[in-house]
């Protein structure tokens, strides 16, 4: 339970960073998606089963805090996680030597899937709610910028991720040893 609360707090803080910190450094219509990058990394490392709940919770939190129609980010995160899980199982296991580059490719693929599904959801929302210009919603350069920004963010976070994983594994190993000792 305590672990779940900690994860919820971390996601909440990530959403705040996404909305209030990152837009200061990037173009107004394109910002790296911190939660998506973390979700893609965790899905590639641990599989979809471990990240599904995170995708749903992160999506709801981001939708609520960023005033997008509820479900848009949940839907697009889920699609990205599903695609990344499939691709990671096919390529990451068999090409261990190309690990970093495959991660970069997964970030790009995950971002593209996320963007397409997000736009699809929003367009559906606009059309169903009869909001003006719904069909004319852009599919422009911001799309490409988002891919580049997410890769950039991933490169910045890759080594801290690895470090954090090592530390967590170490703690998990100690905890296991204690259990065996008992």
């Amino acid at each position: 339970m305590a672990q779940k609360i900690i994860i919820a707090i971390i996601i909440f803080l990530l959403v705040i960073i996404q909305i209030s910190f990152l837009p200061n450094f990037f173009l107004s219509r394109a910002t790296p998606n911190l939660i998506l990058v973390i979700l893609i990394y965790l899905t590639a490392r641990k599989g979809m089963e471990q990240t599904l709940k995170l995708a749903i919770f992160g999506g709801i939190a981001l939708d609520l805090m960023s005033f997008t129609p509820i479900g848009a980010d949940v839907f697009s995160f889920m699609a990205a996680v599903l695609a990344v899980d499939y691709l990671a199982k096919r390529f990451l296991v068999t090409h261990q030597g190309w690990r970093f580059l495959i991660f970069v490719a997964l970030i790009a693929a995950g971002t593209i899937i996320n963007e397409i599904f997000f736009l699809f959801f929003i367009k559906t929302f606009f059309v169903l709610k009869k909001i003006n210009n719904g069909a004319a919603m852009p599919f422009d350069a911001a799309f490409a910028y988002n891919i580049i920004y997410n890769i950039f963010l991933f490169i910045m976070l890759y080594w801290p991720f690895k470090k954090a994983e090592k530390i967590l594994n170490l703690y998990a190993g100690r905890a296991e040893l204690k259990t065996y000792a008992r």
Partner: protein
Amino acid sequence: MPKKILTKNLARFLIVAGICLLLIFLNPKGISGPVQKLLLEIAYPFQKTFYLAGRTISGTFEFLGSIGGLKKENEKLLKENNALASQVALLEDEKKENATLRDQLNLAPRQKFNLEASFVIGQDPQRLGSWILIDKGSANGIKAGMPVIAYEGIMIGKTEEVSPSSSKVALLSDSESAVNVNDTETGARGILKGEFGLGIIMDMVTQTEVLNVGDTVTTSGLGGDLPKGLLVGKIQEVRMTGDKLFQQAVIIPHVKYADLNTVFVIKN
């Protein structure tokens, strides 16, 4: 084995996708409104801290990057300052004349706004690029639909969703934004619409009206929800609508929405 996992995962995805799409048909704001308000309340201090920290850091980077251009900019500003000084002198003269004419015509002085100064604490992180979050809410007397300006009467949008300590401001570039405006030089009237954060256009201008590139566009006050005379921007391009029934003008806003730090909500 992988095929089985994929099927199971696909089934999960389809269930969640179905629920998400179903949410569109239900009233999402009605359901999520209280949760959203609570989340915004909890997030408020963190958002303010993160936004100000981000501004400071990006400002430092920008300053370091712009040192080379400072000399040129300084010279340009000096020239501009001189030009403005002469303009001020001219305007002072016109102000006196205006006051005299108002006295003669028995007109009331221009409306003074009851302004609430607010800091920007968040921006649209998605690709819709059409809202900002400010640090004042219903506790400060702000209600939905109030006009929001930057500096001296430059209209930037309207408050849309208000929580006790923060408010969402839908910018003029919002796809749902619709404001009655006119061309101050020619008097042409139209409706200002946003284009998903891409820009703003003055639409529904009849063929008989005149629109010129470079003309200033202000709010017309029609409809009564916004004060008259708030500056919106300048006309960059004039074109016909697809059906050739109306004219449209592409408007360049006077301020860059992404760089806003402080804004003012007009309360009266």
